[in-house]
């Protein structure tokens, strides 16, 4: 009997050792090069995806000891999915592509690995504005991949000269609308992010730079938002679908049913595939700065972009950092920019002939100065969630511009005062 117990104990010990060995084999060894399995969540859509997947397969080929598995996660659900998995401690990826506004929030909650001094070649090559979103409490929690801002896309077949003021845009949109033919001057998704250029146009904003004062219901924001409501009142907006508004506004523009649209560079590679811009119609695709509230004013558009970060609970942190460094190297940024027409976050990338030759980047580059920072605040990741219902109420006429934005301000108060 006693002997049997001893055998059992030996077997159990061996099994434990074996399991422990399996566990540690995925993390890196002492002095050698990092190894292990790395999961990577990317959020690029179908047209942008191939460039990213090529970088991943190139990295896997060059680093036999590391195996990177890339998984697609829908951008709209990536924030909640990662936050939930990171908190639960299981199911989170090792490397994640995030919106710039999420990084400080994730860092504050302890989800991200401190990357200070772990970036090959340092951080001096990154554009300062996108880099700022990666810092929290003096430490670096991510690296910027692309930067973006909204612009006016217009169909040159319908709009020979783009409007420079929002008053012009309203007049043009009205004359371009023909409801019987399903033809509309302008389209918007009816959600919060795409309302920000309207809030900025008359000198309004979201919050002050220090995050202490909420500007979203200031006089400038209210009169700017009223301009969008006026377009709606004129009937110049493609009928909004609050559930599928983003896709529908893009599809309207692609098919030529919508003449003008506000969107970012990430959508350009998809928009040009539409029947209104494909093949012989390629010259009809127009990009211009967001029209201003008053003539001669500076165009203002919200800064956006995407970062790469490493999950703090990664089982192979060194392999993950090695992959991150490859994924965000100048070479990778150039490859992505050339293929997708997105704006790289590394200054050196703009010197590359392939990037210079890209038509979309060439159109966007002069407009880079119109980018206006969104609040760098750990609580800012959630600001757009509370925003949508109020925008919807204003667009359906249930609320006024002032009333809706006052409610947004009320919802934000606890986020920025805590």
């Amino acid at each position, binding site marked *: 009997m006693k002997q049997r117990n001893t055998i059992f104990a030996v077997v159990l010990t061996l099994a434990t050792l074996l399991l422990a060995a399996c566990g540690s084999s995925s993390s890196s060894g002492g002095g050698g090069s990092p190894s292990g399995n790395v999961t990577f969540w990317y959020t690029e859509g179908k047209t942008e995806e191939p460039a990213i997947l090529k970088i991943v397969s190139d990295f896997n080929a060059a680093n036999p000891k590391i195996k990177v598995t890339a998984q697609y996660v829908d951008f709209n659900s990536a924030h909640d999915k990662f*936050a939930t998995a990171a908190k639960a401690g299981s199911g989170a990826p090792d490397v994640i592509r995030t919106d710039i506004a999420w990084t400080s929030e994730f860092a504050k909650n302890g*989800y991200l690995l401190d990357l200070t001094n772990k970036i090959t070649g340092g951080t001096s090559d990154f554009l300062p504005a996108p880099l700022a979103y990666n810092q929290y409490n003096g430490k670096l929690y991510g690296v910027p991949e692309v930067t973006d801002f909204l612009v006016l896309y217009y169909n040159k077949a319908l709009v020979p000269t783009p409007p420079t003021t929002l008053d012009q845009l309203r007049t043009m949109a009205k004359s371009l609308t023909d409801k019987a033919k399903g033809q509309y001057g302008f389209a918007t998704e009816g959600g919060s992010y795409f309302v920000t250029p309207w809030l900025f146009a008359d000198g309004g904003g979201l919050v002050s730079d220090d995050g202490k004062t909420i500007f979203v219901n200031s006089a400038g924001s209210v009169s700017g938002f009223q301009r969008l409501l006026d377009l709606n009142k004129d009937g110049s907006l493609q009928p909004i679908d609050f559930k599928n508004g983003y896709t529908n506004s893009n599809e309207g523009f692609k098919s030529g049913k919508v003449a003008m649209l506000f969107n970012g560079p990430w959508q350009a590679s998809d928009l040009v595939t539409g029947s209104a811009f494909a093949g012989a119609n390629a010259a009809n695709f127009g990009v211009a700065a967001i029209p201003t509230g008053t003539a001669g004013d500076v165009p203002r558009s919200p800064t956006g972009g995407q970062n790469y970060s490493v999950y703090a*609970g990664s089982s192979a942190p060194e392999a993950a950092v090695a992959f991150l460094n490859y994924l965000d190297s100048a070479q990778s940024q150039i490859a992505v920019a050339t293929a997708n027409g997105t704006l790289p976050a590394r200054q050196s990338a703009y010197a590359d002939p392939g990037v210079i030759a890209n038509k979309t980047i060439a159109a966007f580059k002069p407009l880079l100065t119109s980018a206006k920072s969104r609040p760098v605040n750990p609580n800012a990741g959630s600001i757009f969630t509370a925003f949508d219902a109020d925008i919807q109420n204003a667009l359906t006429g249930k609320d006024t511009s002032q009333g809706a934005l006052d409610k947004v301000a009320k919802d934000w108060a606890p986020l920025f005062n805590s």
Partner: protein
Amino acid sequence: MAKVAIPPPPALPWNARVGRFLNGKAFAYLCIAPVVIAMSVLIFYPMIQGILYSFTNANDSNIGGHIGPNIIPATYKNVGIQNYIDILTNKASGSVQFAGLLMQTLIWVVGCVVFHVIFGVGLAMLLNRNIRFRGAYRAVMMIPWAMPQYVAALAWSFFLNQNYGIINVGLTSLHLAAVPWTTDPNWARFAVIMVNTWLGVPFYVVTVLGGLQSIPAELNEAAAIDGANWWQRFRNVTLPMLRPILGLVMLLDTIWTFNLFAVIYFITGGAPGHASDTIISYAYENPITTHNYGIGAAYGMIILFILMIFTIGYSRAVRVSQGVN
């Protein structure tokens, strides 16, 4: 007084001891132990944790945690019943009215259950006759039920797309006005109830069909001989015989519908401006996606309270009906 040495009781043999144990209460406790342990771990512990969180300002960043090298201390604090006050006085959010959510929950539950009963019982009665291809009809009827809820909801959201959905494209090609599915509050409410009706009818058909088949044919025949017409037979024979099963199905349906958020989430997302949000879909969407655990837990407790009232009401009703019988 002479001391009398009390002899120790004779030690029972082991099998007798086990026998005494098995006959006593201890055995009963032993038997329910697995269930009690499982329920404590799976139900009571999270529930108590939820009750405790509902009195705090816990959120993602102050709840603390230990992830890899990062250790975040827990800094959330007790706020008493502030979360409940904020929710009930509409201070938890600028755009949501608690009374509005309750009203929409009522419309949603009553609307869905009523349509389920009407279509479910109707279709079951149609299928209960001797018709050709009855098996095929029944199989087709099962499709909405066999499909995962979110797949069905997504498919419907394609049909209901404002600009490109098959319904609106069809209407505009006939020169009719497109339906504002997500921008008109009443159409949005109609859309979610319609989709959930489509989803929920098969369950009624299956159970009601079973109930119909257990009604002895003699009852209907006797009623027919007595001169009862179709409606009178339905009203006085079929319906009373179906009542026990229909009551149970309706209770289950009420609880399921109350707790269902996938349909609302995928069809309208609560648009416009929370008009089609029920308390469940809002409780999922807002406090949980903003990771405000305190408010989220308070919503959970309010929902639990509503369901408890309902369940108590139901068990009373059952007891009364049993007393009458």
